[in-house]
């Protein structure tokens, strides 16, 4: 178990900068997720920590020791690959014991450790089988067991759930987190799946195009996105160009043609600074539709253009003037249908203020 620090990490492939000047601290025993679309540099960071790629610049510090020049096999890190990478010619027992061989663990101790790690991943008694005899979810557990049996300083997970089907993925998500809690190993988890990141992490590092956009707890990143990218990548958001109509002790007053003046709390307008223009961000689930006859404060009249019915939820596309907005509402009674005239309302405390879109 160890704290991991990335200091001014850079990685270039020729003229392409895969990671630009990343500074990230992974606290000891924490579960940190690197989240971003493919090609954002998250896997590159994982590969650099594991030693499979060398940083062009910067330092990687694990447990207070700079490990840039430590060869892969001496780093004592457990890496779980997206496709599991189990050795097909070895039994499950041999797969898990593979790393123990190089750590001078005696045969009987190794057997015991293998049994124990299989218990942890809740797949006891499969030592003598071969990887291809197990299902995808089971192989996933074996890959995890193989990584944790060596008692690594850091556990690195490279999209470990993405090859599983949807139901299994949610089960494994819960289980993976439970295992991590139990053994308490510092974990770096790479994913492009925002719900995985939100559900599992102590801290999320949101990345885009090689740049760290925001680091924070899941609710922090979700509720107070630091940039437009974070706002749109996580969840469904509406971003409305706004002018700053004033500032007071409670917050910033953002004025939009659609909703008039909205007072956004100070804590939710940090990145706005003292700009005169910005964007009002409203989460789709924070836009509430009611019948047009009921008029609330901070609301606007709108027309439902399309409905995406999802059972307990409905996603509405509504139009206010020239602006189309998304709203995700619980359905009570009958959902609205396309063409309905509705009233759309927001709660200012749930909105955020972001810098203006430069482009």
């Amino acid at each position, binding site marked *: 178990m160890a704290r991991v620090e990335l200091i001014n990490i850079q990685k270039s492939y020729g003229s392409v900068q895969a990671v630009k000047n990343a500074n990230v601290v992974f606290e000891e025993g924490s579960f940190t997720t690197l989240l971003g679309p493919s090609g954002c540099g998250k896997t590159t960071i994982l590969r650099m920590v594991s030693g499979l790629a060398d940083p062009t610049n910067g330092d990687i510090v694990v447990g207070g020791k700079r490990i840039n020049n430590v060869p892969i096999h*001496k780093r004592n890190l457990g*890496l779980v690959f997206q496709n599991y990478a189990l050795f097909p*010619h070895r039994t499950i027992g041999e797969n898990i014991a593979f790393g123990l061989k190089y750590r001078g663990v005696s045969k009987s101790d190794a057997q015991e450790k293998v049994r124990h790690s299989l218990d942890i991943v809740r797949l006891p008694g499969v030592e003598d089988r071969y990887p291809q005899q197990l299902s995808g979810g089971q192989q996933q557990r074996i890959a995890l067991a193989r990584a944790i049996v060596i008692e690594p300083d850091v556990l690195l997970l490279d999209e470990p759930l993405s090859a599983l089907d949807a139901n299994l993925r949610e089960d494994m998500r819960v289980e993976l987190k439970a295992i991590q809690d139990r053994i308490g190993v510092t974990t770096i988890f790479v994913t492009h799946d925002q719900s995985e990141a939100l559900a599992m992490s102590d801290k999320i590092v949101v990345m885009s195009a090689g740049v760290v956009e925001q680091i924070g707890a899941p609710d922090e990143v979700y509720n107070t996105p630091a940039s437009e990218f974070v706002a749109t990548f996580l969840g469904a958001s509406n971003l409305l160009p706004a002018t700053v109509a004033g500032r007071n002790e409670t917050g910033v007053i953002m004025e939009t043609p659609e909703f008039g003046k909205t007072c956004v709390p100070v804590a939710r307008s940090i990145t706005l600074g003292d700009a005169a223009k910005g964007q009002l961000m409203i989460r789709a689930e924070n836009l509430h539709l009611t019948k047009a006859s009921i008029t609330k404060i901070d609301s606007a009249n709108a027309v439902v253009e399309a409905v995406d019915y999802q059972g307990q939820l409905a996603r509405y596309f509504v139009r206010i003037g020239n602006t189309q907005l998304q709203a995700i509402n619980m359905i009570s009674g009958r959902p609205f249908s396309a063409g309905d005239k509705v009233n759309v309302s927001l709660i200012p405390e749930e909105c955020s203020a972001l810098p203006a879109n430069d482009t």
Partner: protein
Amino acid sequence: MMQSDQSADKRPWALLSPSLFAITILVVIPMAFILVYSFYENVDLAVDRVTFQFGNWQEVMTDGYYHTAIWKTLRLSVIVTVLAAILGYIPAYFIAMTKFRDKWLLLLLLILPFWISFIIRTLSWIHIFGNQGALNGLFRLLGLTDAPLSLMYNEFTVIIGFIHVFLPYMILNIYVSLEGIDENLEPAARTLGATPWQAFREVTLPLSMPGLAAGCLLVFVLTGGSYVTPLILGGPGDFLFGNLIYDAVVSELNWPMGATLSFTLLFLLGLVVVLYSRLMGLNQLSKAFR
């Protein structure tokens, strides 16, 4: 349901029938003629008596000359196979692992020699090892020798010739096997604590065995059945079993003996294939071609 099952059962045979037909007409029937010939009696040059006798077979079984030839063939085939395996693994590994974008170019270079007749490729060694060849020229130039060294027409040049011609088969087989290995396995072994060499030995090498085994079998059988290379590059003592067949058929015009020797070689090499696939597991071999 029943009907579709039945038609599905017959479909493979229907698809195979053109090749089965070709094999029957072009291989099985001619070989049956050769088998029949092995029971004829050769009375004079190119004069055979149609009969049914085991004289030829008895000669092959009892004459030590033929046994020596079998032993020589076996020995040389093993040497060529082992050397080709070692020399072939390195380029195969390189081509499979390289991040070079135009990998197809390397593979093209590998099969490029096939565009030139292998007899011409074999003959080209005369220009290197011959008395007037490049090596002797170099030695003379450096003042190492006065008279040309006799480097040609020995077992060494025969081995060189074989490896030269058969190495691409070995490389391609190993390459196919290596190419099929999950590229994350070696990194996985590395992160678990294996050095680069340990990771290769524990993961890549065993997983490439099917291709290595297939390549070895191919080179062994090709070497064991050849006669041209020793004819061109070997001395009088460097003959293989195939050369005896050539002599019997072409020089002595003793077709019944040639037929007998042909079937002897076919049987021996067939036996190697059967034993080998028993030992290695036939499915191991088929994996290499998957």
